[in-house]
């Protein structure tokens, strides 16, 4: 497959077009700061959800500790930008690497476990990371880390979202991705076919953590302020909900899920007391009536475009 195939060029043009539209709307002030804030949150959630989808949807490993990698990324970026005065790109690279390293350290022991046990073990690791962050004075402890320079903007956000989707999509379509899918379907059979299941499980976990680190950096450098409590297991559950809501194993589903769930919680803000109750009911109804998620395993195709071009 050539890189410069028609399909890829169209996709690239579409990506640039959406970017340009967003940029123009921001410059013209059509998008006010409130909408911008929500777009940032949606973008960060997309990166997190796509990363977790690789672990949970595609490789089939329950993880309830994804927010911890985001925390590692956020704190690393905060330290590099606020304490060391480094540029955002340097901070982001280090955040992603730090989160990926955390992924290796947590992944090697826990990925031997399966199902609910794995979920609880990752939840435990996530909480441990949070508690450690709460107790380190250098990064603010329970008071939180303040005065982080604001670097995240539409350009950074958009291209990081695109990067995460493109990398993970290509990984899924590669040899490694196939191996991951086979693990999710039947681990024993995959192993019998000669797939090094441990290696691919850890690889998926590390890639997911890597992008969660980037999401954390974007988050920290947008909100000036981070505190360990924002990265508790409820955040991990939120991300997992996006993945399941959109459709396990569908990357387009994660994107749609992140957007739809963010919009739902935006509309629910008008009834703050009942927001979480309604959210819980929606979640429940989805799980009962459409447990495969909004898109199931489906992906968006550019078929309608291809027809026109061809």
């Amino acid at each position, binding site marked *: 497959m050539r890189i410069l195939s028609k399909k890829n060029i169209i996709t690239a043009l579409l990506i640039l077009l959406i970017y340009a539209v967003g940029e123009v709307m921001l410059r013209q002030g059509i998008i006010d700061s409130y909408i911008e804030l929500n777009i940032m949150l949606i973008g960060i959630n997309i990166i997190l959800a796509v990363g977790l989808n690789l672990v949970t949807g595609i490789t089939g490993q329950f993880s309830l500790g994804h927010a911890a990698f985001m925390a590692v990324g956020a704190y690393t970026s905060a330290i590099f930008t606020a304490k060391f005065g480094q540029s955002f790109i340097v901070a982001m690279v280090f955040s992603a690497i730090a989160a990926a390293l955390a992924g290796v350290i947590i992944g090697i022991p826990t990925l031997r476990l399966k*199902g609910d046990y794995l979920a609880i073990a990752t939840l435990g690791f996530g909480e441990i990371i949070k508690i450690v962050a709460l107790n380190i004075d250098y990064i603010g402890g329970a008071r939180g880390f303040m005065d982080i320079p604001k670097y995240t903007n539409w350009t950074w956000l958009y291209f990081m979202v695109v990067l995460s989707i493109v990398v993970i999509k290509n990984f899924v379509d590669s040899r490694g991705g196939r191996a991951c899918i086979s693990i999710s379907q039947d681990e*024993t059979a995959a192993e019998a076919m000669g797939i090094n299941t441990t290696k691919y499980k850890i690889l998926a976990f590390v890639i997911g953590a890597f992008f969660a680190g980037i999401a954390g950096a974007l988050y920290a450098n947008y909100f000036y302020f981070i505190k360990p409590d924002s990265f508790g297991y409820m955040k991990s559950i939120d991300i997992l909900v996006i993945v399941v809501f959109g459709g396990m194993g569908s990357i387009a589903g994660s994107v749609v899920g992140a957007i739809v769930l963010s919009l739902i919680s935006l509309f629910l803000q008008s009834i703050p007391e009942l927001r*979480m*109750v309604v959210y819980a009911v929606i979640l429940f109804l989805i799980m009962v009536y459409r447990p495969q998620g909004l898109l199931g395993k489906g992906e968006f195709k550019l078929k309608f475009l291809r027809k026109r071009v061809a």
Partner: protein
Amino acid sequence: MEQVLQQLINGISLGSIYALIALGYTMVYGIINLINFAHGDIYMIGAYIGFACTTFLGMGFIPALIVSMVSSAVLGVIVEKVAYKPIRKSTRIAALITAISVSLFLEYGMMYFVKPETRTFPEVLPSQNITLGNVIVNNKDIYIVIVTVVLMLVLQYIIHNTKTGMAMRATSMDSEAAKLMGISVDNTISATFALGSCLAGAAGVMVGVYYNSIDPLMGMMPGIKAFIAAVIGGIGIIPGAMFGGYLLGITETMVSAYGYSLYKDAVAFAILILMLLIKPKGLFGKNVREKV
């Protein structure tokens, strides 16, 4: 030495609470393989029912405890019938998220009705300190331990000496086979939820009496801790859950007593992870080989 003994007493009280909640987790997991995240919230609602009984109706400790246990059992059955029955056949992850949604629903629904602020539990048991040598034992500690032991003995009796208990054991071994033997699996699952929720409700009232304060999110952490306790003992195994609860409670108070109270949750999770890595079936569990 006195310090250690004193902390041991506090630890046993906390451990009793964990053990009571853990029993519900372990029974439900044993029978339908579901981490019932809402279990911690039933414990919270039990505490509120106890609070309502003692504050508004002026009941004493034991009547309030019984009312709360019965209402929690009913609530547990309702949760099971409404929320968990439709998803019994669905995937693990759908079940997990349903459990989380039920938990959120109970937490925030309760918060809507009782307001988020912390409530002070009335003094239903006048505090009396009994000095044994150099160790001070509060009468609340004694009440908690006695109630817990009585409830556990009753539970053991129900599980080993009644028909319902036998049905529960059979269903948890093999629900298909149990059905073929004429056991009503649906009723058995409901009975399991009722028993587990009943114990959680009792734990809720006792926490209210012991620590004097309750709030709508109080169930989250003890819920997870109790699950850890259940895993330590070996999930699905009843004596294991009791042991795990006491071990966790005592460890936590010891860690706090020696000045690391900020790390007590981390220690609980570290125990969990070590346990899962070394002996995932729990201290009391038997290793079952996976068959293809």
